[in-house]
């Protein structure tokens, strides 16, 4: 990963101008912006928690997992402490299982006991909030964390549940039908966030 270490000033405008255009696909975050966002989120988590004590980073598959590892690496550079990283698959907790063919289940990996720790859920895109709702339920079956936080790379709006993120890489305004595509080097060979127009990608929940 690539966290450059220095804390970045929070972007001043929560909904930076970017006019919503209808062109085929537009890139909204490049590799350096993703790296800065990860570094800043890592700092924010440490600041809010007053250090790395009791923290566990739990990535939501697929792209939440490499992001969680990047945050851990950035925290290691700042504090010199290796925060445990895990994965929490939420497929079987989704509220839309019956609305589509059987969904593939991802991997769940608990590095430490959830009981009593401060769990930071990490995902790439926050959209309807339904994935996070499912993750909270899944987490509850694994134990009783002291606190749960949410860190996302992109908040694209259009919430359908009363859920908000504690740490956000970038606010990106979108239309409801559009698809926010997050690509990460670990899985896709490139670090990039782009917005695809409606229709060519299936609507997703995040």
């Amino acid at each position: 990963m690539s966290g450059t270490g220095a804390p970045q000033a929070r972007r001043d405008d929560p909904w930076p101008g970017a006019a919503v255009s209808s062109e085929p696909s537009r890139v909204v975050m490049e590799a350096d912006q993703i790296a800065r966002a990860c570094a800043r989120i890592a700092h924010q988590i440490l600041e809010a928690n007053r250090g790395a004590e009791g923290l566990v980073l739990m990535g939501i598959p697929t792209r939440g997992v490499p992001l969680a590892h990047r945050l851990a690496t950035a925290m290691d550079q700042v504090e010199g402490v290796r925060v445990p990283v895990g994965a929490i698959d939420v497929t079987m907790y989704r509220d839309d299982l019956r609305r589509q063919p059987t969904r593939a289940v991802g991997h769940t990996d608990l590095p430490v006991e959830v009981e009593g720790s401060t769990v930071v859920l990490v995902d790439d895109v926050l959209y309807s909030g339904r994935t996070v709702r499912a993750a909270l339920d899944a987490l509850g079956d694994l134990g009783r964390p002291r606190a749960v936080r949410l860190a996302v790379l992109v908040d694209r709006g259009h919430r359908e549940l009363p859920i908000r993120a504690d740490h956000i890489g970038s606010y990106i305004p979108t239309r409801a039908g559009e698809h926010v595509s997050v690509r990460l080097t670990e899985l896709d060979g490139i670090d990039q966030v782009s917005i695809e127009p409606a229709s060519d990608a299936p609507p997703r929940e995040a």
Partner: protein
Amino acid sequence: MRHLLSAADLDRHEIGEILDLAEEMSLVQGRPVKKLPALRGRTVVNLFFEDSTRTRSSFEIAGKWLSADVINISAKGSSVSKGESLRDTVLTVAAMGVDALVIRHHASGAPWQASRWIDAHVLNAGDGTHEHPTQALLDAFTIRRHFRNSVPDVSNFEGKTVAIVGDITHSRVARSNVLLLNTLGAQVILIAPPTLLPSGIDSWPVLVCTDFDQVVPHADVVMMLRVQRERMSGGYFPTPREYTIGYGLTRPRLEAMKPGAAICHPGPMNRGLEISADAADAANSLILDQVAAGVSVRMSVLYELLGGAE
């Protein structure tokens, strides 16, 4: 996947998906809350016309851990003992609005028949001398795990030799395992006295041998089949003792096995007959792993069948 009636219904990719998902499901056994909400509101009926402990209870646990409502109906004490036909029983149960029917029946093909009468998903939990596909899946799961420990990243069974020993003629476990292991690319060798080899075995994708000792040192997995009591007096072999000498996994054969080779048995075992206590309790015996795998694999299959939209 609509029904699971035969191990032949599954291709290598589907088997891989079921086994991978079963690995995830196996984590539930170690959790404080042994429950996933995936099948909430679904009803699974275990319809068992034959006695069974492990298959029925593992289907029941699998369904319950996925939050389905599970009902057990056994032939004894039900209207089956009053002479109701299979068709009427199946239609009656289906009419109650069940989502899946797990059927064990003494007649080969009964689950297949049932799947043509009703809309619910049908799972074959053993039919006569035909098939027992979830047993083959849990055997494959257990064997894959065993070889993952010694050889990382063994994702298929190419190059592995599995010896299945015992009453092949009457064994649904053997039939399902032959089909599944063959799909996965393993070499299957069937070992039995000539009286317990079915006619038409030449067309099976296997090697056949009547000399157990010749095969023992070459097998990566030795899978022992139960000698069913009713066969012991059926003239298939002279005496139980002679069966043990020729086809039992005795201590000398245990010692002749390839290092790292595994022992499987679908249970229930006849200790001292087809398997010695030394072999049953050996470090390389996977028999209890098979039982644990049964729950995970059946959870995986139930999720595959019932987890999505109708």
